[in-house]
């Protein structure tokens, strides 16, 4: 749709949704999302009614009204409890999501096995060998191949060749384990036995890594992974001077600007501005700081400070710009008429769209009951 190329929307980087033939995965995906920010939970907490939100989201919401956003039940900030199980679930889900998306894609076309591999019948390992034999001689080796039910014996070039595996030395074969290496019966590439069926299924792609270095590589990755885990955990190390304890909200009505400044300076925050400015700065800081204590991946205090500064300057810009100007203009009859005439073409376009879409939908519905998905989406 041409509208999705809106210049201001280009910043959005959405992860791909699950294909529609997997409604259960879509549901699972949706269940990991906070109903306030519509993003996967960050530092999830549960309130007294049992609903869960991001810590920062519900704390901001409770500043405005003391009700659960989902069920309207009265709740207080005191009932907020960290939900570690949910956090673990969201983390695990986020980690496995790309893999699942990948698996949910329709299978790609398999490339044909390389032609040349059939003519090369050289054998490298004496333990196990593959031989290409004319179809006519298949019976001769039938008993040998029949004894190994798991071996791939299906023909990929059905016209004249059949792949047979012949065990030259039965005793040796019995000692083989899944981790031992053997040549692929089709292309002779060496790889662990356990991966041969999959390799053939894929149409004999060239192996990615040298099989011999596989073990070494695996160990190296493991080491690197652990390093990542430890360095990730060490993020909070710099913040010794500030006590990482939940901040108790001051009584703003009774606090003097000096009181607020004292708390702000305790957390090395700017102390400029009048009382309302100080208050909103402190309120936002308390939300950021307290919710940061509800997650296993806390941000550093300097990152929190940067976040606070950014939202404050963004708010200021909005105010200076006088955003509500248009809204105020619409309150008067002249302004409304003017606005309507200026935006006429835009509305005309939306109008046409609506009519066309309805028509299309109706046509589709006549074909089959299509309206069901929408009914669910409405919530």
């Amino acid at each position, binding site marked *: *749709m041409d*509208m*999705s190329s*809106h*210049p*201001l*929307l280009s*910043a*959005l980087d*959405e992860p791909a949704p699950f294909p529609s033939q997997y409604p259960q995965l879509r549901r699972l995906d949706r269940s990991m999302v906070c*109903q*306030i*920010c*519509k*993003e996967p939970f960050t530092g999830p907490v549960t309130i007294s009614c049992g609903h869960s939100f991001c810590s920062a*989201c519900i704390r*901001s*919401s409770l*500043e*405005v009204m003391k*009700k659960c*956003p*989902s069920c*309207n039940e009265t709740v207080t900030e005191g009932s907020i409890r960290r939900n570690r199980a949910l956090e673990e679930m969201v983390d695990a889900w986020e980690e496995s999501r790309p893999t699942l998306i990948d698996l949910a894609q329709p299978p790609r076309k398999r490339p044909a096995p390389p032609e040349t591999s059939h003519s090369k019948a050289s054998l490298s390992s004496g333990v196990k060998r593959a031989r290409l034999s004319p179809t006519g001689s298949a019976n001769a080796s039938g008993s040998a191949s029949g004894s190994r039910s798991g071996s791939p014996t299906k023909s990929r070039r059905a016209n004249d060749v059949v792949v047979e595996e012949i065990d030259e030395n039965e005793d040796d074969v019995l000692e083989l384990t899944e981790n031992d290496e053997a040549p692929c019966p089709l292309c002779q590439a060496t790889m662990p036995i356990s991966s041969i069926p999959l390799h053939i299924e894929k149409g004999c792609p060239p192996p990615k890594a040298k099989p011999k270095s596989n073990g070494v590589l695996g160990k190296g990755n493991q080491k690197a992974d652990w390093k990542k885990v430890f360095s990730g955990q060490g993020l909070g190390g710099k913040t010794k001077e500030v006590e990482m304890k939940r901040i108790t909200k001051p009584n703003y009505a009774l606090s003097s600007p000096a009181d607020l400044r004292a708390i702000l300076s305790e957390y090395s925050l700017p102390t400029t501005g009048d009382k309302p400015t100080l208050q909103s700065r402190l309120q936002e800081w308390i939300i950021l700081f307290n919710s940061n204590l509800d997650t296993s991946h806390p941000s550093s205090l300097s990152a929190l400070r940067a976040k606070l500064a*950014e*939202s404050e300057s*963004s*708010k200021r*810009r*909005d105010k200076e*710009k006088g*955003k*509500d100007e*248009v*809204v105020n203009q*619409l*309150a008067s*009859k002249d302004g*409304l008429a003017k*606005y*309507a005439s200026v*935006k006429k073409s*835009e*509305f005309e376009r*939306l*109008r046409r*769209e*609506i*009519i066309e*879409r*309805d028509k299309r*939908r109706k046509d589709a519905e006549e074909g089959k009951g299509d*309206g069901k998905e*929408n009914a669910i*989406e*409405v*919530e």
Partner: protein
Amino acid sequence: MSALPKRILKETERLMADSPPGISAAPKDDNLRHFDVTVAGPESSPYEGGVFKLELFLPEEYPMNPPKVRFLTKIYHPNIDKLGRICLDILKDKWSPALQIRTVLLSIQALLGAPNPDDPLANDVAQNWKENQSAAIAQAREWTRQYAQ
């Protein structure tokens, strides 16, 4: 342009790619918080066949505070006044940050299908609606034909 919360970007994208039946909404080029909206009158209501223009504004505090919505098209409805202001609980005290633009617009469309003269905003319309419902509905139909088509 101030930094827009990701939620607004997300909602906008979904709204434009897949808007509910009979509803379309698009943000203004220079302000993603300000939307032009059209809502088709629901079937078997006096507003059927009409397409109503609205404007929707997301305040700085959104989603903690509700969006501001008003009709730009003249409409004869007990819960919508001369200036297009709408009497709808979720736009006022029943707002919840779990709601979104989509649900608000669907609620407005539902309000067109189910006028509530007991909770009026336009008193004269509401009174007419209660005293002489068929005349009021005829009037609403007439206004729809006159202004919304």
